[in-house]
Protein backbone atom coordinates (compact mmCIF):
# COMPACT_ATOMS: atom_id res chain seq x y z
CA UNK A 1 0.00 0.00 0.00
CA UNK A 2 1.34 3.37 -0.91
CA UNK A 3 1.85 5.74 1.96
CA UNK A 4 1.79 8.88 -0.16
CA UNK A 5 0.81 9.77 -3.72
CA UNK A 6 1.60 13.07 -5.44
CA UNK A 7 0.88 14.60 -8.84
CA UNK A 8 3.20 17.46 -9.81
CA UNK A 9 2.52 19.85 -12.69
CA UNK A 10 4.85 20.85 -15.49
CA UNK A 11 5.93 23.97 -13.62
CA UNK A 12 6.81 21.87 -10.57
CA UNK A 13 3.99 22.88 -8.29
CA UNK A 14 1.84 20.19 -6.70
CA UNK A 15 -1.54 19.47 -8.23
CA UNK A 16 -2.44 16.80 -5.73
CA UNK A 17 -0.72 15.34 -2.68
CA UNK A 18 -2.42 12.74 -0.52
CA UNK A 19 -1.01 10.80 2.40
CA UNK A 20 -2.44 8.14 4.69
CA UNK A 21 -4.49 9.91 7.35
CA UNK A 22 -2.52 8.99 10.43
CA UNK A 23 0.87 9.98 9.01
CA UNK A 24 2.84 13.18 9.33
CA UNK A 25 1.87 15.04 6.13
CA UNK A 26 4.59 17.66 6.26
CA UNK A 27 7.32 15.06 6.17
CA UNK A 28 5.89 13.63 2.97
CA UNK A 29 5.49 17.01 1.36
CA UNK A 30 9.18 17.49 2.01
CA UNK A 31 10.09 14.05 0.66
CA UNK A 32 8.13 14.68 -2.52
CA UNK A 33 9.76 18.06 -2.94
CA UNK A 34 13.26 16.66 -2.66
CA UNK A 35 12.47 13.82 -5.03
CA UNK A 36 11.66 16.42 -7.69
CA UNK A 37 15.36 17.20 -7.89
CA UNK A 38 16.17 13.57 -8.49
CA UNK A 39 13.57 13.45 -11.24
CA UNK A 40 15.02 16.49 -12.98
CA UNK A 41 18.42 14.91 -12.85
CA UNK A 42 17.15 11.69 -14.38
CA UNK A 43 15.30 13.41 -17.18
CA UNK A 44 18.17 15.63 -18.16
CA UNK A 45 21.05 13.26 -17.73
CA UNK A 46 22.71 12.30 -20.94
CA UNK A 47 22.42 8.60 -20.49
CA UNK A 48 24.80 6.20 -22.20
CA UNK A 49 21.97 3.74 -22.39
CA UNK A 50 19.36 5.55 -24.46
CA UNK A 51 16.79 2.92 -23.64
CA UNK A 52 16.37 4.43 -20.21
CA UNK A 53 15.39 7.76 -21.66
CA UNK A 54 12.63 6.27 -23.74
CA UNK A 55 10.58 4.98 -20.85
CA UNK A 56 8.09 7.01 -18.89
CA UNK A 57 8.56 5.00 -15.69
CA UNK A 58 11.61 6.21 -13.77
CA UNK A 59 11.74 3.50 -11.13
CA UNK A 60 13.14 3.80 -7.64
CA UNK A 61 14.30 7.39 -7.21
CA UNK A 62 15.98 7.03 -3.88
CA UNK A 63 15.54 4.91 -0.76
CA UNK A 64 15.57 6.41 2.70
CA UNK A 65 15.74 4.33 5.83
CA UNK A 66 11.95 4.20 6.16
CA UNK A 67 10.59 4.75 2.69
CA UNK A 68 11.14 4.15 -0.99
CA UNK A 69 10.19 6.79 -3.54
CA UNK A 70 9.17 5.91 -7.10
CA UNK A 71 8.75 8.34 -9.98
CA UNK A 72 7.03 8.50 -13.38
CA UNK A 73 7.06 11.39 -15.83
CA UNK A 74 4.61 11.76 -18.72
CA UNK A 75 5.39 13.33 -22.07
CA UNK A 76 3.50 16.40 -21.00
CA UNK A 77 5.97 16.74 -18.10
CA UNK A 78 3.49 15.81 -15.40
CA UNK A 79 5.21 13.90 -12.60
CA UNK A 80 3.68 11.17 -10.50
CA UNK A 81 5.36 10.19 -7.27
CA UNK A 82 4.55 7.21 -5.05
CA UNK A 83 6.09 6.68 -1.61
CA UNK A 84 5.87 3.25 0.02
CA UNK A 85 7.17 1.89 3.29
CA UNK A 86 10.43 -0.01 3.15
CA UNK A 87 9.09 -2.68 5.44
CA UNK A 88 6.62 -3.60 2.74
CA UNK A 89 9.08 -5.77 0.86
CA UNK A 90 6.47 -7.73 -1.04
CA UNK A 91 5.74 -4.92 -3.48
CA UNK A 92 7.19 -5.78 -6.90
CA UNK A 93 8.29 -3.47 -9.65
CA UNK A 94 5.43 -4.62 -11.87
CA UNK A 95 2.89 -3.63 -9.29
CA UNK A 96 4.37 -0.15 -9.02
CA UNK A 97 4.29 0.13 -12.80
CA UNK A 98 0.64 -0.85 -12.89
CA UNK A 99 -0.11 1.70 -10.16
CA UNK A 100 1.47 4.40 -12.29
CA UNK A 101 -0.43 3.18 -15.33
CA UNK A 102 -3.71 3.58 -13.47
CA UNK A 103 -2.69 7.01 -12.23
CA UNK A 104 -1.83 8.09 -15.75
CA UNK A 105 -5.13 6.81 -17.11
CA UNK A 106 -7.04 8.65 -14.38
CA UNK A 107 -5.07 11.82 -15.07
CA UNK A 108 -5.77 11.63 -18.81
CA UNK A 109 -9.47 11.22 -18.17
CA UNK A 110 -9.40 14.21 -15.85
CA UNK A 111 -7.67 16.45 -18.40
CA UNK A 112 -10.38 15.61 -20.93
CA UNK A 113 -13.05 16.69 -18.47
CA UNK A 114 -14.41 19.94 -19.93
CA UNK A 115 -14.82 21.40 -16.46
CA UNK A 116 -11.15 21.04 -15.66
CA UNK A 117 -8.72 23.79 -16.65
CA UNK A 118 -5.13 22.84 -17.21
CA UNK A 119 -3.05 23.83 -14.20
CA UNK A 120 -5.81 23.81 -11.61
CA UNK A 121 -5.37 22.08 -8.27
CA UNK A 122 -7.00 18.67 -8.45
CA UNK A 123 -9.95 18.30 -6.14
CA UNK A 124 -13.02 16.13 -6.19
CA UNK A 125 -16.35 17.71 -5.54
Amino acid at each position, binding site marked *: MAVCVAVIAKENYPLYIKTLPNENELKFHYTVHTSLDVIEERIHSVSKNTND*LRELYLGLLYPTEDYKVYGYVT*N*SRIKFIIVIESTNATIRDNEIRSMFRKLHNAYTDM*VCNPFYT*NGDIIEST
Partner: protein
Amino acid sequence: MADEVLFDYLHMEMIHEFFNENYKKEGKSEESMTTLELLGFRVGQCVIERLTKDSPRFKDELDAMKFTCKDFWMSVYKKQIDNLRTNHQFLAFPCGLIRGALSNLGITSVVTAEVAIMPACKFQIQIQRV
Protein backbone atom coordinates in the same frame (compact mmCIF):
# COMPACT_ATOMS: atom_id res chain seq x y z
CA MET B 1 -15.95 4.95 -41.46
CA ALA B 2 -18.41 7.52 -40.29
CA ASP B 3 -16.02 8.92 -37.67
CA GLU B 4 -14.28 11.50 -39.83
CA VAL B 5 -17.54 12.88 -41.16
CA LEU B 6 -18.86 13.49 -37.66
CA PHE B 7 -16.04 15.83 -36.81
CA ASP B 8 -16.31 17.58 -40.17
CA TYR B 9 -19.96 18.33 -39.61
CA LEU B 10 -19.37 19.50 -36.08
CA HIS B 11 -16.58 21.74 -37.25
CA MET B 12 -18.70 23.26 -40.00
CA GLU B 13 -21.56 23.91 -37.62
CA MET B 14 -19.29 25.48 -35.04
CA ILE B 15 -17.92 27.90 -37.60
CA HIS B 16 -21.37 28.66 -38.90
CA GLU B 17 -22.58 29.36 -35.39
CA PHE B 18 -19.68 31.58 -34.47
CA PHE B 19 -19.82 33.62 -37.62
CA ASN B 20 -23.53 34.03 -38.01
CA GLU B 21 -25.33 37.37 -38.13
CA ASN B 22 -25.88 37.80 -34.41
CA TYR B 23 -22.21 37.85 -33.66
CA LYS B 24 -21.42 40.22 -36.49
CA LYS B 25 -23.97 42.78 -35.42
CA GLU B 26 -22.53 43.08 -31.95
CA GLY B 27 -19.11 43.60 -33.44
CA LYS B 28 -17.77 40.31 -32.16
CA SER B 29 -16.38 38.81 -35.34
CA GLU B 30 -12.81 38.96 -34.05
CA GLU B 31 -13.80 37.35 -30.83
CA SER B 32 -15.22 34.46 -32.81
CA MET B 33 -11.84 33.67 -34.31
CA THR B 34 -10.24 33.81 -30.88
CA THR B 35 -12.91 31.58 -29.38
CA LEU B 36 -12.49 29.01 -32.12
CA GLU B 37 -8.74 29.07 -31.69
CA LEU B 38 -9.07 28.60 -27.94
CA LEU B 39 -11.43 25.68 -28.51
CA GLY B 40 -8.82 24.11 -30.72
CA PHE B 41 -6.19 24.78 -28.07
CA ARG B 42 -8.08 22.90 -25.40
CA VAL B 43 -8.90 19.99 -27.69
CA GLY B 44 -5.26 19.79 -28.80
CA GLN B 45 -4.09 19.51 -25.21
CA CYS B 46 -6.51 16.70 -24.41
CA VAL B 47 -5.81 14.72 -27.55
CA ILE B 48 -2.06 14.94 -26.98
CA GLU B 49 -2.48 13.74 -23.42
CA ARG B 50 -4.34 10.66 -24.64
CA LEU B 51 -2.03 9.95 -27.52
CA THR B 52 1.25 10.27 -25.64
CA LYS B 53 0.09 8.02 -22.84
CA ASP B 54 1.70 4.98 -24.35
CA SER B 55 4.51 6.36 -26.45
CA PRO B 56 8.08 6.56 -25.15
CA ARG B 57 9.51 9.82 -23.91
CA PHE B 58 10.57 12.52 -26.38
CA LYS B 59 14.24 13.29 -26.26
CA ASP B 60 13.99 16.91 -27.41
CA GLU B 61 11.81 19.47 -29.11
CA LEU B 62 12.47 18.04 -32.53
CA ASP B 63 11.03 14.72 -31.41
CA ALA B 64 7.94 16.46 -30.07
CA MET B 65 7.46 18.37 -33.33
CA LYS B 66 7.85 15.22 -35.40
CA PHE B 67 5.28 13.46 -33.27
CA THR B 68 2.87 16.38 -33.65
CA CYS B 69 3.25 16.51 -37.40
CA LYS B 70 2.91 12.81 -38.01
CA ASP B 71 1.00 10.80 -35.41
CA PHE B 72 -1.10 13.56 -33.95
CA TRP B 73 -2.20 15.02 -37.26
CA MET B 74 -2.89 11.59 -38.72
CA SER B 75 -5.10 10.63 -35.85
CA VAL B 76 -7.13 13.83 -35.96
CA TYR B 77 -7.55 14.38 -39.65
CA LYS B 78 -6.80 10.91 -40.96
CA LYS B 79 -4.72 12.49 -43.70
CA GLN B 80 -1.12 13.40 -44.27
CA ILE B 81 -0.29 16.84 -43.10
CA ASP B 82 -0.24 18.44 -46.53
CA ASN B 83 -3.90 18.25 -47.55
CA LEU B 84 -6.25 20.62 -45.81
CA ARG B 85 -9.20 22.91 -45.94
CA THR B 86 -8.82 26.49 -47.01
CA ASN B 87 -10.70 29.36 -45.56
CA HIS B 88 -9.55 31.56 -42.76
CA GLN B 89 -12.45 30.69 -40.56
CA PHE B 90 -11.85 27.01 -40.99
CA LEU B 91 -8.24 27.48 -40.09
CA ALA B 92 -8.78 28.95 -36.64
CA PHE B 93 -9.58 25.61 -35.06
CA PRO B 94 -6.61 23.67 -36.50
CA CYS B 95 -4.29 26.52 -35.52
CA GLY B 96 -5.49 26.22 -31.95
CA LEU B 97 -5.21 22.45 -32.17
CA ILE B 98 -1.53 22.62 -33.03
CA ARG B 99 -0.82 25.28 -30.42
CA GLY B 100 -2.57 23.23 -27.73
CA ALA B 101 -0.71 20.08 -28.66
CA LEU B 102 2.66 21.79 -28.57
CA SER B 103 1.96 23.61 -25.34
CA ASN B 104 1.15 20.40 -23.54
CA LEU B 105 4.44 18.98 -24.76
CA GLY B 106 6.22 21.97 -23.26
CA ILE B 107 6.68 24.19 -26.33
CA THR B 108 5.17 27.68 -26.26
CA SER B 109 4.41 28.83 -29.75
CA VAL B 110 2.38 31.07 -32.02
CA VAL B 111 0.67 29.35 -34.92
CA THR B 112 -0.52 31.23 -37.98
CA ALA B 113 -1.91 29.91 -41.21
CA GLU B 114 -1.44 31.08 -44.77
CA VAL B 115 -3.19 30.01 -47.91
CA ALA B 116 -0.99 30.41 -50.95
CA ILE B 117 -2.45 28.12 -53.57
CA MET B 118 -5.70 26.26 -53.23
CA PRO B 119 -6.16 23.72 -51.74
CA ALA B 120 -2.85 23.83 -49.92
CA CYS B 121 -2.38 25.50 -46.58
CA LYS B 122 0.77 26.36 -44.68
CA PHE B 123 1.02 26.57 -40.94
CA GLN B 124 3.77 28.71 -39.59
CA ILE B 125 4.87 27.85 -36.08
CA GLN B 126 7.00 30.34 -34.18
CA ILE B 127 8.49 28.89 -31.06
CA GLN B 128 9.00 31.35 -28.24
CA ARG B 129 12.04 30.73 -26.16
CA VAL B 130 12.07 32.00 -22.60
